[in-house]
C-alpha cells in the first residue's frame, strides 16, 4: 500500500512541478466552442463550463495543493520545533505561557479560526502598499493568494508542532545522555541542537506526513468556500465547488477533482503509515 501510495504521489508531484511544461493547455485557456466538452483526444478529461481543459486545471491544482502543503509544513516545523524544544528543555514561565496559549487556541474550532484568519489576510494583504511588509503584498499577488493561505494555516498549525515537540523534549531532558553532555560543559544550544533534535527527529518526520494532508484538506476547503486561491488559478477545492452547480448534468466535472484529491490524501496516509512503521521499531503490530 505504501509503495502504491508513493508511486501515485510521485506522479502528482511530477504533474505539479511540471504543470507549465507538461499540461496540454494553460489553466485559463478557454475554448468556447467546446464548453462542457466530453473527453476527446484533444481534451483527455473533457472541458469545463468555460471550455477550459480539465486535465490541465487538475495539474495546476496539484501545484497549488502541493505548494501549500509543503510550504506550510516547512514553515510550521521551522517555528514549532525550536519553540517546542526550548519550552520543553527550559520549562518555566515561557513553557507555561506557551501551554496557556495552546489551550486558548484549542477552544476555538480549528476551521473557524482559519477561516477568520484567511478572511483577514485576503482583505489586508492587498492593502499593504508601502512599508517594510510590502513584499508580502507582492508575494501574495504573485502566487494568486497562496501566500495568504499558507500564512493563515501556519499561524494556527505551529502550535500543534510546538506542543508535540515540547512533550518529547520534556521527556528527554533528564535522561543520562543530556546530563552527561551538560557535565562535560556543553551549552544549552548545543544540547538542544546536537542531542535533543536527533532524538525527536523520528516523531517530527511522522508528524510532518500527517501535517501535509491536513494542510491540503484545509486549502481545498478554503478554496471550496471561495476564500482560497484567486480565480482563474484552479485549486481542487475550487474545481469541486464549480462542478457542484452542474453535478446533475456533468458529474465528471466534480468527480474528477474529488477523486484526485481523495487519492492524493489516501496515498499520503499510506506513505505516512509506512514511514511510521519504518521509523518506530518499538511499536508492536
Amino acid at each position, binding site marked *: 500500500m505504501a509503495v502504491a501510495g508513493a508511486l501515485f504521489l510521485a506522479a502528482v508531484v511530477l504533474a505539479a512541478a511540471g504543470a507549465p511544461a507538461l499540461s496540454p493547455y494553460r489553466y485559463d485557456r478557454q475554448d468556447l466552442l467546446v464548453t462542457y466538452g466530453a473527453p476527446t483526444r484533444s481534451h483527455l478529461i473533457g472541458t469545463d463550463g468555460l471550455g477550459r481543459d480539465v486535465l490541465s486545471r487538475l495539474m495546476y491544482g496539484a501545484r497549488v495543493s502541493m505548494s501549500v502543503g509543503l510550504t506550510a509544513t516547512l514553515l510550521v516545523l521551522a517555528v514549532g520545533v525550536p519553540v517546542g524544544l526550548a519550552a520543553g528543555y527550559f520549562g518555566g514561565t515561557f513553557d507555561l505561557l506557551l501551554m496557556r496559549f495552546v*489551550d*486558548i487556541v484549542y*477552544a*476555538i*474550532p*480549528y*476551521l*473557524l*479560526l482559519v*477561516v*477568520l*484568519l484567511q*478572511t*483577514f489576510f485576503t*482583505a*489586508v494583504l492587498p*492593502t499593504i502598499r508601502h512599508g517594510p511588509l510590502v513584499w508580502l503584498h507582492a508575494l501574495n499577488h504573485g502566487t494568486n493568494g497562496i501566500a495568504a493561505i499558507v500564512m493563515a494555516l501556519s499561524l494556527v498549525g505551529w502550535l500543534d508542532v510546538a506542543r508535540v515537540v515540547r512533550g518529547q523534549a520534556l521527556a528527554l531532558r533528564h535522561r543520562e545522555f543530556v546530563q552527561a553532555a551538560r557535565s562535560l560543559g556543553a551549552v544549552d544550544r548545543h544540547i538542544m541542537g546536537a542531542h535533543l533534535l536527533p532524538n525527536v527527529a523520528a516523531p517530527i518526520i511522522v508528524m510532518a506526513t500527517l501535517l501535509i*494532508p491536513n494542510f491540503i*484538506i484545509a486549502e*481545498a*476547503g478554503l478554496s*471550496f*468556500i*471561495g*476564500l482560497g486561491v484567486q480565480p482563474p488559478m484552479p485549486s481542487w477545492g475550487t474545481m*469541486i*465547488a464549480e*462542478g*457542484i452547480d452542474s*453535478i*446533475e448534468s456533468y*458529474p465528471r466535472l*466534480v*468527480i474528477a477533482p*474529488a*477523486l484526485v*484529491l*481523495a487519492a492524493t*490524501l*489516501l496515498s*499520503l*496516509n*499510506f506513505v505516512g*503509515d509506512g514511514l511510521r512503521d519504518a521509523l518506530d521499531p518499538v511499536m508492536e*503490530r
Partner: protein
Amino acid sequence: MGAYLVRRLLLAIPTMATVYTVAFLLVHATPGGPWDNAEKPLAPQVIENLRVKYHLNEPLWAQYILYLRDAVHGSLGPSYVNTARDVSEIIADFFPVSIQLGLVAMAFAVVLGIPLGTLAAVYRNTPVDYLSMGIVVTGISIPNYVVATILVTVLAVVLHWLPTGGWGGVLDVRVIIPAVAIGLRPATTLARYLRASLLEVLGQDYIRTARAKGLARRAVILRHALRNALIPIATVSGILVADVVTGSFFVETVTRVPGIGRYFVTATTGRDYPVLLALALLFSVVIITMNIVVDLSYAVLDPQVRYG
C-alpha cells in the same frame, strides 16, 4: 459533583472571553465589508450613514463593550447583508436544521463505528480487522465534502436512488447523503478508539474469569468487555461534536441543506463579518458545553471516577 460543575463553568468564562476578544479583533481588523463593491461603488454619504448605523465610527473599545453587552443579552447584532434581520434570528432559523442533521450523523457514526471497532478488536489481525481498519483510514483521510460529492454523484446522479440534495427533516430520504458524509469521520474515530480500548479490556483478568466459568464468548464480549471498553469512548465523543459541527460547513453546501453551515459559507463569501463573529462565538459555546457534558457523563458511566 456540584462544586466540580461550578468550577468548570467558571473556567469556561476566561476561555469564552479570549475567544470573543480574538474573534472580535480579527473581524474588526479586517478592512471593508459587503458594501465595498468596486464595480458599483456606493455614495460616500451612504457608506458614512452605514458606518454610523453599525457604530463603526466609535472607538474600538466602545464597540467591544457595546457588542459584548448586546451578546450577553442575547442579541448578536444586525447582519451586514441581510440588514432587516438580527444575527440571532438568523441563527434561530438555520441552526435547528444543522442540529437535526448533526444528530442523524452522530446516530450513523455510532451505528457504524461501534460494530466496526468491536469486530476489529475481536477478530484482531485477521482479514476482518484489516478490512475495518481500511475503512477507518479511508474515512479519516478523505474530507467530508469529498465524500458527499462522491455519494451524490454515485447514489443520486448515476444510480438515481436518492435525490441530489435538499432538506425535509430527519425522516426524509434526503437526510441520508449529508448524514453519512458528516458521520463517516466520527464513525471511524469511534471505531479506532473502541478497537484500542476493547483490546485492552479483553486482556483483563475478569474476562478470563467470565470465560472460565463457562460464559459464551458472545455474552462475555457484549456484556462484560464492551460495557467497560465504551467508557473512554464517551470522552472521544466530545471531540466528535466539533467534527460534526464544523463538518456541516461544506457538506450542507454540497447537498443544499438550509443549515447554519451553508449560511456560514454564504456569509464568508458575502463578507458578512457580524455573522462570522457570531458563529465563532456560537460554535465555541457548543464545543465548551459538550466538553463539560462529556466529563460529567464520565462520572456517571464509571463509578471509579469521582469529582471532588
